[in-house]
Structure formats: structure tokens, C-alpha cells
């Protein structure tokens, strides 16, 4: 079992699995997007998918990587999901819980800690049901262990199609020659930050609060499996692809606003990145450098026309690589790196719709005020996709009109 985080060409691996930093807003919106799929097929249950995805990962760690229950619980805490405690033979309680405390949903209250229930199921080899939830007026999240279950067949059947990313500005179509940002220094600074959950014995809560959001160091396979299984089913029955896609892209956009925006308003940004910024383009290069420390892949700026257009390439994007771990390359569709699409559009909005440089103070009210009219959104298009067999993802966002 590997407890050290290993950098792998833009991905961050823990126990061999790709992990990515994501916030509570992204986790909440992605879960709501997945739940939109209820009723696509008669025997397809999105809530069960959310559980099964987590279960498959915990089973993989337990059965293939030799994790013990204790090690799984430690990793759960370290990744910022909270603290799980065994109450008796048949119950676990989430003393602290990212999904129970920090995520939200817009619909009627109901138990919503599907990831945690699935993780416990994979860890214990028993079916697990959340019988009390903070989202549903519970004081804690309580999970009941029921009958034993057989391990799920792993959905992650294919090897990771990893590529060697080019150096910054060193690819033929690149229209940017240089930047004031020292990317290596930024990556080193971010990588040196302690963005992990601490157990109670170290005085921690198992939660990670940074940049004004609740962070998790989540399993990339979890995100990819739940997103693509629902999206592909939606499209298969005739839900327009752009409509289905937008539900997932919005999750990325919310993430960009809160996490990337939060980073750009943070003291750490002021100390490390801002002094290197000479103009608005350097703010783009600065946040891209930060992103390159989040496990999202290697982002390379291809073109910036301030206020008009931004084109980004992503080598080894966790979505593209993750798609290919699940399915063979499929060149019928290229707009499938939903997080990257929402994030690139979000960066443009942060700089050219809000102007984050003025530190407007990011909150829900500002989000509503700025983005409550979709007609002013920048367009976003993915032209290349690792999932489609291309060597990289390429996202282009353009100002409206």
C-alpha cells in the first residue's frame, strides 16, 4: 500500500489511484447532476450509482492494494471526507462529514451521503444504508451495516493513456511566448501547503477548509464513473447532449468560481503569485500554474486574447484519462471533459466578467448577481478530447457576441 502522494505527469496518485482536489460546491453540484438521471432506465438508480462508485474504489483498495479497514478509514480522513467511527457491530457514525456538513442540495431534504455509505460498503463487504443524515435533520450521519455483499466487478478495465506533456509555450500552435509567472515556484508552493484532513488524535476534524471552501482530495475514478455513466445514458435515450452536458459543466463552473476564485482572493495568492503578475494574462498563467498542482492534469495556455478568447490544452486530464479507464476511445463526441469546460469558462468569467483582481468578495450573492443571466455567458467548446483518442483535451472559451 502506498501512503505517499506521487506526482505522475500532472496526476496525483495515492495508493495508485488518481486523486484530485475539489470543493464542496463541486461535490454538491455534481451529485445533483447525477441525480437528474433518475428514471432514465427502469432499473437505473442514480443514488445507487453514487454508492456503487465509492464501493468499487474501496473494494479495489482493500482487495487489490491490501488496505486494512483502519488504513481505509485513515485515507478517508486524510482526503477530507471527515471522521468515521464504529458504534457497534452494525453501525458507523460520521462524527464529522464533508458530504453531510459541507455539501448541499437544492431539492427536498433527504439522506445524501451516498459516497460515505458506498465507501463503508466497500470497506466492510456489507451493504450499507444511511439511516440518519444531517441533510435530513439528523444530528450526525449514521450508517447501518446490513447483509454481506459480493465485490462489484471493477468498471475500470482499461489502462491509463498517459502522455508526455510539452513544456510551457513549447508546442506548435501556442500563441503565447512568455509569462511573468514562475510555474515551478507556484507548483512547489501549492504542493507544500497542508490541504489534508487531520484525525482527532492530531486535533483535527477530518475536514479541510481552505480558500473559503471545503476541500476534498477525491478519487478521480469516482467523479468520472458517476458522471459518464449518467451522461451516456441520458444521451442514449435522446436527452439533447448539449442539455445533459451543461448540467455537468455547470458543476465545473461553480467550482471555478468558488475554488479558483477563492484561491485568487487568498493571502497565499497575494504572497506567492500576485507579485509575479504584470497583467491580466499573468493572472491566467498564475491560476493555471495553481491548477497544475491540483491533480487535474497538465494545463497549458495556448492562446489568450484578454476579454475575447482563452484556449487551454490539458494533457493527461483526469477526465480524459478517467474516461479511457472506463471505456474505449470514442471519437463520436469530443465535448466530454465537463469539469475542464466549466473551469476554463469560469476562469474567463472570473477575470473578464467579475474582475477578480478587484477582490469583489466571492459569495453566493455575488454568484447570483453575476451569473443569473445565462445570456451573458462566455461560450465554451472542447475541440480535442483524450476520451476521443486525441493526445490532449483542448478547451476554447469566447466572449458573447
Amino acid at each position, binding site marked *: 500500500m502506498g501512503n505517499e502522494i506521487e506526482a505522475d505527469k500532472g496526476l496525483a496518485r495515492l495508493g495508485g489511484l488518481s486523486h484530485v482536489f475539489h470543493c464542496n460546491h463541486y461535490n454538491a453540484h455534481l451529485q445533483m447532476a447525477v441525480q437528474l438521471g433518475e428514471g432514465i432506465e427502469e432499473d437505473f438508480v442514480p443514488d445507487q450509482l453514487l454508492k456503487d462508485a465509492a464501493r468499487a474504489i474501496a473494494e479495489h483498495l482493500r482487495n487489490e492494494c491490501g488496505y486494512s479497514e483502519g488504513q481505509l478509514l485513515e485515507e478517508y480522513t486524510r482526503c477530507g471526507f471527515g471522521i468515521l467511527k464504529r458504534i457497534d457491530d452494525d453501525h458507523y457514525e460520521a462524527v464529522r462529514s464533508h458530504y453531510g456538513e459541507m455539501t448541499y442540495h437544492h431539492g*427536498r431534504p433527504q439522506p445524501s451521503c451516498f459516497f460515505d455509505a458506498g465507501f463503508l460498503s466497500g470497506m466492510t463487504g456489507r451493504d450499507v444504508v444511511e439511516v440518519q443524515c444531517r441533510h435530513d435533520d439528523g444530528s450526525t450521519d449514521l450508517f447501518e451495516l446490513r447483509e454481506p455483499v459480493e465485490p462489484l466487478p471493477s468498471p475500470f478495465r482499461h489502462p491509463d493513456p498517459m502522455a508526455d506533456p510539452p513544456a510551457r509555450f513549447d508546442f506548435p500552435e501556442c500563441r503565447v511566448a512568455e509569462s511573468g509567472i514562475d510555474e515551478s515556484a507556484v507548483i512547489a508552493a501549492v504542493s507544500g501547503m497542508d490541504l489534508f484532513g487531520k484525525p482527532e488524535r492530531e486535533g483535527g476534524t477530518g475536514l479541510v477548509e481552505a480558500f473559503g471552501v471545503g476541500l476534498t482530495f477525491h478519487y478521480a475514478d469516482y467523479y468520472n464513473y458517476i458522471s459518464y455513466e449518467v451522461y451516456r445514458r441520458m444521451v*442514449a435515450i435522446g*436527452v439533447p447532449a448539449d442539455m445533459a452536458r451543461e*448540467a455537468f459543466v455547470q458543476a465545473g463552473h461553480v467550482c471555478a468560481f468558488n475554488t479558483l476564485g477563492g484561491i485568487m482572493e487568498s493571502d497565499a495568492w497575494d504572497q506567492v503569485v500576485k507579485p509575479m503578475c504584470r497583467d491580466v494574462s499573468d493572472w491566467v498563467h498564475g491560476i493555471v500554474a495553481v491548477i497544475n498542482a491540483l491533480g487535474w492534469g497538465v494545463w497549458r495556455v495556448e492562446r489568450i486574447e484578454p476579454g475575447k478568447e482563452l484556449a487551454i490544452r490539458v494533457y493527461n486530464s483526469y477526465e480524459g484519462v478517467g474516461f479511457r479507464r472506463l471505456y474505449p476511445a470514442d471519437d463520436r463526441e469530443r465535448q466530454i471533459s465537463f469539469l475542464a469546460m466549466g473551469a476554463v469558462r469560469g476562469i474567463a468569467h472570473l477575470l473578464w466578467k467579475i474582475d477578480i483582481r478587484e477582490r469583489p468578495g466571492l459569495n453566493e450573492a455575488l454568484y447570483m448577481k453575476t451569473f443569473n443571466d445565462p445570456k451573458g455567458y462566455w461560450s465554451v467548446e472542447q475541440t480535442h478530447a483524450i476520451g476521443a483518442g486525441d493526445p490532449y483535451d483542448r478547451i476554447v472559451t469566447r466572449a458573447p457576441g
Partner: protein
Amino acid sequence: MAQPIGVQWMQGQRTLDIDQVFHEINAERRLAGLPQVELSVMRVRVNIRLSIAGVERLPSSGRVEVDDDQLAAIARAISELFNTAYTVERLANFERMLGDAETPADQLAAAADAAPGQAPAGPASSVSAPRPVAPVTDAVGDEPRDRLYMVDFFTAINQVRRRNRQLPIEPAVVIVRVSVRFAIVRRRRLNFDQAWIEVSPMDVAALETILAEQFDVHLEQGMARLIDQGRARARQEPRKLSWVDRIFRRRNFNFHVNDMVMAITRQRAQLGYHPKSPREIQECCEKLLADMNVKFRDGRVRLTEAQMDQLAEFLREEYGLYFEDLDSFIGVGALGR
């Protein structure tokens, strides 16, 4: 002992095969000449009722163990929602029909097939495989239809949420979620870019369910109030001219720019959009009117029919507004013809 279809008694508990029950309901509705209801719609709507009643929700498919109270709540919800008298006693009555190889659903479906003028598709064939989403936007078939005005729909969601001290949800999220859920539940697309959509009672039921499920929004008096509201407003609006009138009766519209700015500001506030200053709106509109070579006199402008259409398109795009005719939107009182 033969068990009633859909219900089994196991060691003092009852096991309800909810899919089987839903098939029965559709068979009965078919016999009664009522439209079929997608199983997913039934499930979601029954679950809403059960949640309100404080009863555990149904699984997505298959069997569920229930006690007497839960079964009664399910039967009550089904009866209220789907126009059937599907009580616990009614379930038990099916027991007598199980002596035959055919299930009650088969018998009801066969009876429906024999009945002239009924829909041909049976419940089993209509639900066994995922049905594709049809590329049409308005209600189809013989179902009665009503107009639901988008401005009323979007306004209602955040009004209710604000009243309940919940955060408002940006229209982009509302549009995407409602579009996707509607396409899945009704297997039909809706075009939310229009000023209004045509909806059947089943569409209305689906939309009400979606609002509750996605946004925790329960409309007082349901969606019917919004439809009535739109209908009442439409009655007050001047009659739309035919295309002949539009070509041969050349109309001119004379109004004050301030009235237009007020109308824009009012609807943007209703929709929950972030406020733009009247001056900003006025300058933007005046720039467009100047580009259209429209002359101002004391803030009043005179526009042709074609110019009104052009201005309307601009306002919809620029400010995310929903209206059918610009003259009605600005208000009859502001117009001279």
C-alpha cells in the same frame, strides 16, 4: 394460498411489488381511456406524497416491504394521483383473479385491447425498454393543453425559495435541470427559450414534481395558478393581428422610452436577475434605436411593426426577458397607434 398480485405477506410483513402495481394502474387507466403514465413519473410523484406523509419512499424498482400504514399511504397516494381506486382492499381483491394463468394486468390489458378506440400500446411494451426522447416541444395527442408562460414559471421558483429563506437558484441552473428532468420523465423536449410552452395536465404534473424534487419548491395551488395567471394576462392584452393585417394595415407604435425601461426593469426584478440601473438600460436601448435610425422627441419614439420586432428580439437577447409581443410587454397604456 394464492397471493394478491403485487402484494405478498411474508412473516407478518407485506412485500409490495411496486412495478407490478404501476403496471396495473396503467392497465386500468388504459381501460378507462386515460393516458398512460410513465413508471418513473408515478414513482417520483408517489414518493413526493410519501415524503410529505412522512413515510419511507419507494425504491426505484422491485419489491419493498411495507407495513399496514405504509401500504395505506401508498394506496392513498396512488388513488389521489392517478385517478384510480387502488386501495389495500382493492389489492386484496386481485387474489381472486389469480386462479387463472393471466395476471390482472394481462386481463385488464386484454380487455383494453378488445375495447374499440383505445390506445394500442400495452403497459408491458411501453415500459420494458427505455423510451427515446421525442424531438418535439409541445404537448401532443388529444390531451387538453394550456399555456405556461416562462416568466411566471421562473419567477415562482425563486419567489417560493426566498419566502422559505432558501438561496435563490440562478436561471441557468433551473433551465438545465428542468430541461433534463422533463426530457427524462416525459420523454419529450421543451424549449425554454420561448415566451410560453404548451403543456398538458401530465406535463404540469411532471413539472410540479420536478420543482419539488430539484428545488424544494411547492407552489401554492400548484402550477394551475400560474397557468390561470398567464391566461388572465393574455385576456387583457390586445388581440394579435393576423398576418394580413400586419402586411396591409401598417401600424406605427408610439411610446415613451421610460415606459420600456420600466417594463424591462420590472420583469428582470421578477425573474431575480441582478439589477441594472435604469440609466444603463436606457442608454443601451437608445443606442440600439439610434442604430435603427429612430428619432426621439421628448423621449418618445415612433416605430414600425418591423422595428418593433427587431427591438423585441434585442431585448429578449440582451436582458433575458420572456414576452410574446413587445407592445403588450410595454403596456397598452403606453402605446398610441
